[in-house]
């Protein structure tokens, strides 16, 4: 009954559904969810993955050429293995270097690849041997501010509370 009587609302409902469906289809077609099939996959091992997560971009000279599809731990070596899904138009030499960097203090981690000079290209399923893991920026900053070493850092992080006896009462 209701569908026929309230034709204006019915029409609006159909329009809203159509718009949503249209935008969704458009998004999925340009968003690369379905296009990813042409990509090839390579891997890279890092001693420290930092905040690298699936979905992070892979860049060459600052241009995005792929995404991180998976980050797992290799149990034997305790290395982080990142699977990279690469744009098929970009061929990388076998001696390229992969480096985890971040866009700044607030930016997320991504992988920057510096192409090497080898004549041979990485095959799908290949591995980048030259890698540089994530740098602990806060650790770096800490070591610059207090060059004495990490022991001092701990105390600075929790003054007085952890062991008041060892702290001089200078602040009082």
């Amino acid at each position, binding site marked *: 009954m209701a569908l026929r009587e309230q034709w204006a609302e*019915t029409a609006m409902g159909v329009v*809203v559904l159509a*718009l949503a469906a249209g935008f969704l289809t458009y998004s999925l077609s340009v968003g690369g969810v379905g296009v990813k099939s042409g990509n090839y996959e390579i891997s890279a091992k890092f001693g420290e993955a930092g905040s690298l997560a699936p979905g992070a971009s892979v860049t060459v000279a600052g241009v995005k050429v792929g995404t991180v599809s998976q980050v797992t731990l290799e149990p034997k070596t305790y290395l982080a293995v990142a699977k990279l899904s690469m744009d098929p138009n970009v061929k990388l030499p076998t001696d390229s270097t992969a480096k985890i960097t971040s866009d700044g203090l607030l930016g997320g981690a991504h992988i920057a690849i510096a192409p090497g000079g080898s004549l041979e290209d990485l095959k799908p399923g290949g591995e980048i041997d030259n890698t540089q893991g994530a740098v602990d920026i806060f650790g770096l900053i800490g070591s610059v501010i207090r060059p004495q070493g990490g022991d001092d850092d701990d105390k600075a992080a929790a003054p007085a509370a952890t062991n008041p006896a060892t702290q001089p009462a200078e602040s009082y």
Partner: protein
Amino acid sequence: MTAQAARKAAPNPIRALGRSTLAAISTVGGVGVFAVRGVAAALSPPWFFGQLWRQIVAIGFFSLPVVGLTAVFTGAALALNIFTGGGRFNAEQVMPQIVALGITRELGPVLAALMLAGRVSAAIAAEIGAMRATEQIDAMRTLSTDPFRYLVGPRLLAGVLMLPILTAVADTIGVAGGWLVATRVLDFSPTVYIRNTISFLESWDIISGLIKAGVFGFIVTLMGCYHGYNASGGARGVGRATTHAVVSSAILIFASDYLLTTFFTHAAK
């Protein structure tokens, strides 16, 4: 004032406090019992599929225009605001991701639920309240039909089923609203905006929002049914039931939104 009179007057505030506390407890208990009966009616036969279909159309389909409209404008405004805010620390480019996150996790479900609180909760309270006032609910019982199964169950089911679907539509249209502003006004590339959004969003962002929506759908329809079913006092009572349904739905939506978000944030870790 004599001491005796003072002693007589003194217990009053405490009694009033006690009385209002008891009233609050009995209301919570009443809603709880009502909810349990409603869920039991919704999940056990006999089912009235005709009624369920009617409610799915009324609650789900006819809420599409208002939910879509709310979502597109909110998405657009959100995009502008986040662009401005992001610009203060040179992070304008993450706007699509923040818009998508804000809409899928929070604004999609909450706004769709609030629209339903205004549209559906009020309508249910008014309809069932009027049925109560004109003895239609009593009449239904004398016709060997349980009003909980015929009236309450289908509405609760339709709310729980349809609000997640409406939220999915609101998510899509909200992102589209942000995308429209970004590409028309802020010179974002249409495809980059979409790609950033899609590669950034995790399935949990969307699913947690849809779970929230299911809970909100239950709240909105439950409040409408409860206040309508317990309406008394003729037309004024129906009016009061409508107001209470909308206000209590809105409050419960916000409260449960916070609780669910807290729960999800801990569960995700």
